[in-house]
């Protein structure tokens, strides 16, 4: 059977190869030069972090900046503070020098934090690979592993080439990461400007303005988040997508789909600024990416699953679903634990700094939502079907994790338990809905876990955020918010209705963007050339026809010299 499958050497690479070339040319054309007064990149990291980045626990800077706006109401006070600081600095020059060192060490601490939590998120790749591999049939195990592996490889390259520049090329305009030194060279929008930015434009191929220590630190952290969105789709499209089609999906996610919405929310783009521009609370808030990462992945997965259609034999002639039981529950559970562990980097890491001590609350909230989600799903399934389903227990935990990802920094531990519980219920409902009603074949439940619960997570920010953290978020209300000094991001239950509607709108926009853009682009691709393997390949299993090797080759017939 396999002898009849023609080995099209690198035939699968032609289409994505052309895509990369085109994108590369685009990147070269768009590179901008330096003007004399623009910030200089710091590739060696020797000019990042000084007394201006030395702050106390409350975020108050050691070095008082000179007030420039003479018309501001508190100009007189600020000028007095500045003059006093100048006088003290003149009397104690050693203290000022020490402050330079302290400021540098703060940035260094945060670099170490951000990079290491980024490595934890990288490790989640292994977790997801194990999880999804275990959930599918044995004949597709190598295919699942290869999808997860190639996802990392190719999406990374697309993000390096253009994705990072699109997402963060203008981050310094509205959302400079102060914990990492501010990345001042990433300050140019390709599309849009000011508080209406749509696409960043500095740092293609990580060169020029992005060849900077702070920028690279940010890039490492953000690329592994993009990778998370990239591998989520594997959970829904596996067991029937062909390899070149999959590579195109990954290039698309890394280059365009993820960075666009990511720019709008995290890159200082328009969606983060609607607090100022449209008076919608603190603007759209998504702390670690319930929507930016997970809903993008989940709704992209949904669009692709709709285009591909269900697996052969999944639905009988009467339309009733058939079960394809997991081939290795050991992988499923181990993979889930690895994801949980990696999430300790995903959520707390999103402060981009260990100097932000909210990291402890974030870590606890993350775990609470995880276990609440799992317990809820387990119990609910037991009530419904009489036995606790191992895979749903795992999906329940992941649902809780996805849902807490946006609100983790802004809610109390009890709220985290509630959010996890809601996610546990939603994922169970979602799995049953897709299986029986919408008939969208989702082998690993990725649409329910990441799509639906990601949307829920962002909305939960607008419900449960209690104002104890996030003062000045997206540039709103640094002095006072809702009449209180130091009030942070707040939700419906604590008196902020506008934030709730902002979250509702932004999360829904995310779903529409991810589903819509993917559906349009890949409907066209699929019409040109089918992204699905032929039926005889699907029946045999994709391991040998697609990759020429089996995940578990029988060792019975071996000749030994």
């Amino acid at each position, binding site marked *: 059977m396999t002898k009849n499958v023609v080995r099209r050497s690198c035939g699968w690479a032609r289409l994505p190869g052309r895509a990369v070339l085109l994108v590369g040319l685009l990147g070269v054309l768009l590179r901008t030069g330096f003007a004399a007064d623009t910030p200089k990149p710091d590739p060696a990291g020797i000019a990042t972090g000084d007394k201006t980045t030395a702050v106390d626990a409350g975020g108050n800077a050691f070095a008082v900046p000179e007030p420039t706006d003479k018309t501001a109401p508190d100009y007189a006070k600020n000028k007095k503070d500045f003059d006093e600081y100048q006088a003290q600095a003149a009397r104690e020059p050693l203290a000022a020098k020490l402050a330079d060192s302290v400021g540098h060490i703060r940035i260094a601490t945060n670099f170490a934090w951000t990079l290491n939590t980024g490595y934890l998120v990288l490790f989640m790749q292994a977790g997801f690979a194990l999880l999804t591999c275990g959930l599918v049939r044995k004949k597709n195990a190598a295919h699942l592993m290869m999808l997860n592996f190639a996802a990392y490889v190719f999406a990374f390259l697309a993000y390096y080439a253009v994705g990072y520049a699109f997402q963060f090329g203008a981050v310094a305009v509205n959302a400079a990461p102060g914990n990492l030194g501010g990345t001042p060279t990433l300050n140019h929008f390709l599309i849009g400007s000011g508080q209406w930015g749509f696409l960043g434009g500095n740092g293609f191929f990580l060169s020029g303005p992005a060849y900077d220590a702070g920028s690279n630190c940010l890039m490492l952290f953000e690329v592994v988040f993009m990778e998370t969105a990239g591998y989520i789709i594997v959970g829904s499209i596996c067991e029937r997508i062909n390899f070149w089609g999959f590579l195109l999906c990954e290039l698309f996610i890394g280059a365009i789909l993820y960075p666009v919405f990511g720019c709008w929310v995290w890159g200082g783009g328009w969606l983060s600024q609607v607090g100022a521009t449209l008076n919608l609370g603190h603007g759209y808030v998504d702390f670690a990416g319930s929507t930016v990462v997970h809903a993008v992945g989940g709704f992209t997965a949904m669009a692709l699953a709709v285009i591909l259609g269900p697996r052969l034999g999944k639905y009988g002639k009467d339309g009733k679903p*058939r079960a394809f039981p997991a081939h290795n529950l050991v992988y499923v559970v181990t993979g889930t634990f690895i994801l949980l562990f990696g999430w300790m980097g995903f959520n707390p890491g999103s402060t981009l700094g260990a100097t932000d001590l909210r990291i402890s609350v974030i870590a606890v909230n993350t775990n609470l939502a995880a276990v609440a989600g799992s317990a809820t799903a387990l119990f609910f399934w037991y009530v419904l079907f009489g036995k606790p389903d191992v895979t749903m227990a795992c999906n329940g935990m992941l649902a809780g994790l996805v849902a807490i990802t946006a609100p983790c920094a802004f809610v109390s531990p009890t709220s985290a338990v509630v959010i996890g519980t809601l996610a546990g219920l939603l994922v169970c409902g979602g799995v049953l809905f897709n299986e029986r009603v919408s008939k969208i074949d989702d082998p690993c439940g990725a649409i329910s876990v990441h799509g639906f619960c990601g949307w829920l997570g962002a909305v939960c920010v607008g419900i449960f955020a209690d104002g104890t953290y996030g003062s000045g978020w997206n540039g709103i209300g640094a002095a006072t918010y809702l009449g209180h000094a130091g009030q942070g991001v707040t939700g419906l239950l604590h008196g902020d209705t506008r934030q709730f509607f902002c979250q509702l709108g932004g999360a829904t926009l995310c779903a529409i963007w991810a589903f819509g853009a993917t559906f349009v682009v890949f409907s066209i691709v699929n019409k040109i050339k089918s992204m699905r393997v032929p039926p005889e390949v699907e029946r045999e299993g994709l391991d040998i026809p697609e990759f020429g090797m089996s995940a578990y080759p029988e060792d019975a017939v071996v000749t030994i010299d």
Partner: protein
Amino acid sequence: MKRIDSIIRPQNLDAVKENLAAIGVQALTVTEVRGFGRQKGHTEVYRGTEYAVDFVPKIMLTIISSDDRAKEIVDAIVAGARTGKMGDGKIFVSPLDEVVRIRTGEHGDAAV
């Protein structure tokens, strides 16, 4: 010569092996098989969808014996494998044309 194939529950393999050793049976082959008879399978639920677990795991023992020993071997197997519940298994005794010991080239009863 007879070929005795027995399909038994996996958990009774040890008891059967002991009984056979007690009557001096020195050689047997074991295969892991799946099947169903009157015991039938049952349905389970995976992620909300019912599926049939038709095939029950069993052990198949294959023993070669001379004609005169076949009955005592069958009795020994039955004694070790019977629980009285459905699913105990079956024993098939069939005539054997030829047995060869590869190492020495012996044929027939000498090779059993």
